[in-house]
């Protein structure tokens, strides 16, 4: 029934790992071909693969893991999806229902363990409930503010010798859950009035525009008004990165111009972004002259950390569409003169400090150069799946995403080990696309066993390991706040990555000089059917800048090791 329900939901791939509690389900999988199972090497990877599929397509990915250790191994992946509001259905095996509560072999209370990191979870009490529950799980995961849903299935619910009536519902209604379908038109009208009067506006958008499929509407709207746009880490690609109106990322490692524009704005239109502490810096100093319009599908995101003057609860796509219409109908026009001088100011900020790093003081390759090369070689068109650390920030800053759903990274939880399985999940579903995994020598070792899965299923992703021989992000904080006491942030005893990937049957390359980088990278991407691991030696002393000064305002930033705003 489980497999049949997945098939009826239209699921093509599931990612998982078998075990005792799931043997009936695995036997059912064996006897059909509609739902294909990808065997990972660690359950965490299964959840990240499912999660990345969702980030790339907007549809819920599915992971299947057994009870006990299988389920607990999946928890990091579930939490990763939860923090970034990613739709996912995780099916966990459970011990026989009559054994629950008896500390049975491989029993863990998965409902209890997962509760704080899921949108919802279910436990199957009667086999005949399986189809409807799976339907509900997909519905809840994918509607409203998306999120992961766990379905815990005791082994005796899947006994193949028992037969039960099966019906997969076409649609589902829940009396206690009614996701909102449009915004309040009075509020939207009020917002548009304010937008048309703004003199120093900024549009600040996040993951809600990406997962809410609103990037086309956002682009049209911003261009209609000629307003600057800045994206959160999760919102990159929501507005074309190479367009003049794009200020890049804002926040802790945001661009100088984005953070300055936010600080000096008189009106901020936030869409599908949650005023995270990595964005706002000290909330009491946040954007002192701005009024705030906040569009979000989840009322709890609004006025959570920063009070909104005009809250609008609704899906970004529908709300922006309504705003476009109102602007078109309106007799008023945006204040062209005010906007012109605002743009002049922004361009001056951009000129002064925008997107620069120093290459002169050492022979060593800069990590930023590697990302710029990646952007060049893939024409800004690849799926870039990142791990967590400095390399992630460089990728966010220097890869210019012109399309949504192409930048795949763990923002809210910041899960090292996410990158490789994420790239695998994307490559499997987009076999013809260029898929890059940007990682560090620290992060890659957190799920490196998946190189074996890549071999089994022919997943020729390109792994760019920015090897700075240290836990760079940690070391940067130690440099800045702990007088360079590098406590446990070195990675001595690194493996020879080239030999390592070769032993898994893949291609390894070592790149030490900038002069070799372009050729090597082109060669790697030209090998369409091989996984290539590029071990790229980069400057181990580099820091990510800008970096906001702790407890400061948006505009308070370090711009290099020696310069501050």
């Amino acid at each position, binding site marked *: 029934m489980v497999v049949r329900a997945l098939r009826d939901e239209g699921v093509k791939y599931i990612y998982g790992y078998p075990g005792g509690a799931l043997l009936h389900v695995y036997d059912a999988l064996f006897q059909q071909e509609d739902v294909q199972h990808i065997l990972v090497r660690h359950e965490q990877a299964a959840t990240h693969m499912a999660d990345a599929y969702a980030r790339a397509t907007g549809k819920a990915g599915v992971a299947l893991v057994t009870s006990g250790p299988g389920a607990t191994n999946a928890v990091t992946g579930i939490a990763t999806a939860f923090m970034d509001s990613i739709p996912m259905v995780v099916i966990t095996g459970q011990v026989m229902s009559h054994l629950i509560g008896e500390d049975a072999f491989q029993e863990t209370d998965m409902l*209890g363990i997962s509760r*704080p990191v899921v*949108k*919802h979870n279910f436990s199957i009490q009667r086999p005949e409930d399986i189809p409807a529950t799976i339907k509900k799980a997909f519905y809840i995961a994918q509607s409203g503010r998306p999120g992961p849903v766990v379905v815990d299935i005791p082994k005796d619910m899947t006994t193949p010798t028992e037969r039960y009536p099966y019906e997969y519902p076409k649609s589902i209604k*829940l*009396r*206690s859950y009614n996701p909102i379908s449009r915004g309040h038109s009075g509020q939207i009208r009020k917002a548009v009035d304010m937008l048309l009067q703004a003199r120093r506006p900024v549009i600040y958008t996040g993951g809600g525009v990406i997962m809410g499929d609103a990037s086309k509407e956002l682009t049209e709207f911003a261009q209609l008004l000629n307003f600057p746009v800045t994206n959160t880490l999760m919102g990159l690609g929501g507005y074309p990165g190479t367009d003049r109106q794009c200020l890049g990322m804002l926040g802790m490692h945001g661009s100088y111009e984005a953070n300055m524009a936010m600080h000096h704005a008189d009106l901020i239109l936030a869409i599908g972004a949650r005023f995270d502490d990595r964005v706002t810096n000290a909330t009491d100093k946040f954007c002192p002259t701005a009024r705030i319009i906040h569009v979000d599908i989840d*009322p*709890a995101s609004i006025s959570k950390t920063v009070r909104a003057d005009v809250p609008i609860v609704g899906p970004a796509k529908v709300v922006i569409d309504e705003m476009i219409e109102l602007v078109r109908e309106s007799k008023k026009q945006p204040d062209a003169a005010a906007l012109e001088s605002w743009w002049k100011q922004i361009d001056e900020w951009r000129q002064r400090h925008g997107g620069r790093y120093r290459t002169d003081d050492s022979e060593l390759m800069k990590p930023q150069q590697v990302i710029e090369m990646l952007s060049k070689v893939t024409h800004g068109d690849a799926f870039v799946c990142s791990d967590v650390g400095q390399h992630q920030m460089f990728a966010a800053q220097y890869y210019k995403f012109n399309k949504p759903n192409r930048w795949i990274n763990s923002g809210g939880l910041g899960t090292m080990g996410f990158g490789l399985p994420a790239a695998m999940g994307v490559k499997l579903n987009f076999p013809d696309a260029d898929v890059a995994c940007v990682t560090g020598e620290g992060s890659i070792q957190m799920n490196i066993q998946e190189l074996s899965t890549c071999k089994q299923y022919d997943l020729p992703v390109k792994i760019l390991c920015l090897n700075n021989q240290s836990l760079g992000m940690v070391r940067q904080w130690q440099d800045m706040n702990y007088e360079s006491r590098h406590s446990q942030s070195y990675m001595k005893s690194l493996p020879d990555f080239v030999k390592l990937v070769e032993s898994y049957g893949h291609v390894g390359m070592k790149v030490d000089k900038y002069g070799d980088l372009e050729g090597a990278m082109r060669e790697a991407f030209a090998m369409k059917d091989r996984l290539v691991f590029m071990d790229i030696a980069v400057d181990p002393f580099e820091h990510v800048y800008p970096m906001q000064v702790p407890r400061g305002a948006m505009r308070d930033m370090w711009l290099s090791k020696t310069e501050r705003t």
Partner: protein
Amino acid sequence: MRHIISVLLENEPGALSRVVGLFSQRNYNIESLTVAPTEDETLSRLTVTTIGDDRVVEQITKQLNKLIDVVKVVDLSEGEHIERELMMIKLKANGQMRAEIKRTCDIFRGQIIDVTPNTYTVQLVGASDKLDAFIASLGNMASIMEVVRSGVSGIARGEKVLSL
């Protein structure tokens, strides 16, 4: 400020733990919590009292509403409402103290529901501050052996109801 929040909840296994878990997970405080099924057996009614500023309480109601099992939420303290709590209190009572306790009980409209030669068990219903006042007034007179309080239940005044 103290708020009384009423929640209509699906009467499902695990639903209560989601509510309680939310409070600890998000660092909200719970003063008291009561829960029981309603006349519609598929629904439970839960009352939670909490202390927090307006912003925190706004977040609490929004986060409660987000739980899939929660059907409706209302902050009763925003309008006219009635709150009641039940207390059973066991007191050491002998000699002339017995009459004294009995009198205090009458003043508070409490009932003595169990008696032994040395103890009284008193039942008292009212708003929480009335129960507090009763305990305070017994203070120097009787020694308290055991206190059991039900936690607050609340309902809106007038015609307003919390239902499906």
